[in-house]
């Protein structure tokens, strides 16, 4: 029953799929690049990896039957990033995923505001976090993803997203307020 249709030639179907891909997936290229940039901490490498991820997404696109295209794409981007890191910078992935929540004196909003006003410091503090914390923070704060989307993208249970964010934020505060401005300027 389907013989004639399947034999129609894959290029026709490809053109249709491509139009659909361009409409649904391509608009999320910024999101893809931003996630890759923060996971890899390098713009140049992120261009390569985002490009590769987009092409993979296109190849897998027939398996995508509607739903959240951004989350679907970001899942592929994330996997591509981790594969790239394993191959090129395996040491980075060895930083252990710290399950402990260390009690710490709360930082005053004022101190944090001052530290957070410096874009370079903020960038360095975010980059100093282990990738698993960095990605939940980027997805939540920069990409505006819901917990459900973060769970789908990062393959962690939805119940764990909230505590991962809590730990990530605590670490970010620590990283921000513990590197003194002097240190920061020396590193520049």
């Amino acid at each position, binding site marked *: 029953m389907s013989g004639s249709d399947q034999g129609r030639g894959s290029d026709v179907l490809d053109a249709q799929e*491509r139009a659909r891909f361009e409409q649904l997936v391509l608009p999320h290229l910024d999101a893809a690049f*931003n996630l890759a940039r923060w996971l890899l901490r390098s713009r140049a490498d*992120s261009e390569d990896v985002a490009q590769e991820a987009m092409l993979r997404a*296109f190849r897998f696109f027939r398996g995508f039957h509607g739903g959240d295209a951004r989350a679907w794409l970001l899942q592929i981007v994330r996997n591509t990033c981790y594969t790239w890191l394993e191959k090129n910078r395996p040491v980075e992935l060895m930083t252990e995923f710290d399950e402990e929540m260390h009690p710490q004196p*709360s930082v*005053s*909003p004022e101190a944090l505001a001052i530290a957070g006003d410096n*874009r370079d410091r903020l960038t360095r503090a975010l980059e100093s976090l282990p990738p698993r914390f960095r990605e939940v923070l980027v997805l939540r704060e920069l990409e505006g993803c819901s917990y459900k989307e973060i769970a789908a993208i990062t393959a962690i249970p939805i119940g764990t997203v909230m505590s991962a964010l809590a730990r990530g*934020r605590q670490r970010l505060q620590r990283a921000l307020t513990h590197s003194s401005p002097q240190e920061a300027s020396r590193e520049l």
Partner: protein
Amino acid sequence: MSCDYTRTVLHGYLDGELDATRAGEFERHLEACRECANTLGAEESLRSSLQRSGLYEHAPVSLRKRIRADLDAATAPALALRIPVWRWFAVAAAILLVASISWYAWPRLQNSAASAPVTAAEIIDAHVRSLQPGHLMDVASTDQHTVKPWFNGKLAFIPPVKDFADEGFSLIGGRLDVLNGQNVAALVYARRKHIVNVFVWSTKEPDTPIHPPGSRQGYQWVHWRHQGMEFCAVSDVSAADLHELAQLLYE
């Protein structure tokens, strides 16, 4: 020093992910707990720093170009020459598998030799896509005399634009959409709080009556052809409601 709420619930509250009951509970707790109040202040300040600082990095234009070139290469038939044969077989097998699964999984709406058939899956995708914020309408108007001229020159046919507010289907606007690679008109109706998309495109096939409604994933659609135009109405309203609108449009 270490309030349990600070560690978890506070973050759900900050992110707007708590249900009303738990959010209310936390707000009452917040009045009494200094630690949580301080932490919440710090977290809010951190969030506004993150969002104000312009840390979001947009994709460079060069990357966009490279991806377009990739897609061109992946779409061109000449691809076969540059890929090792075994990989090509793997790709072909995967494509065939998915194609045959989708063939069996999705019922065909029509079978036209001239243009590729539109599947129910595409119609429903297009409907769902239209419900995402900012996607529903290009021209928002309850006035058919505003919506109809808006389509002029944008399509090779003129879709019938009629308001049926008296019958319970208010025309709320229209937009251009793409189904199966061809431009279609989408008329948007509101039925109580539900949205109905009516997709219209041109066809050379003969007229048909309104087909019995189809249903998938909680969405209903009805389909018919009339005077050189093909119609598909899709919504989450009942099949009976949808059929009623189809009849109004058919007349």
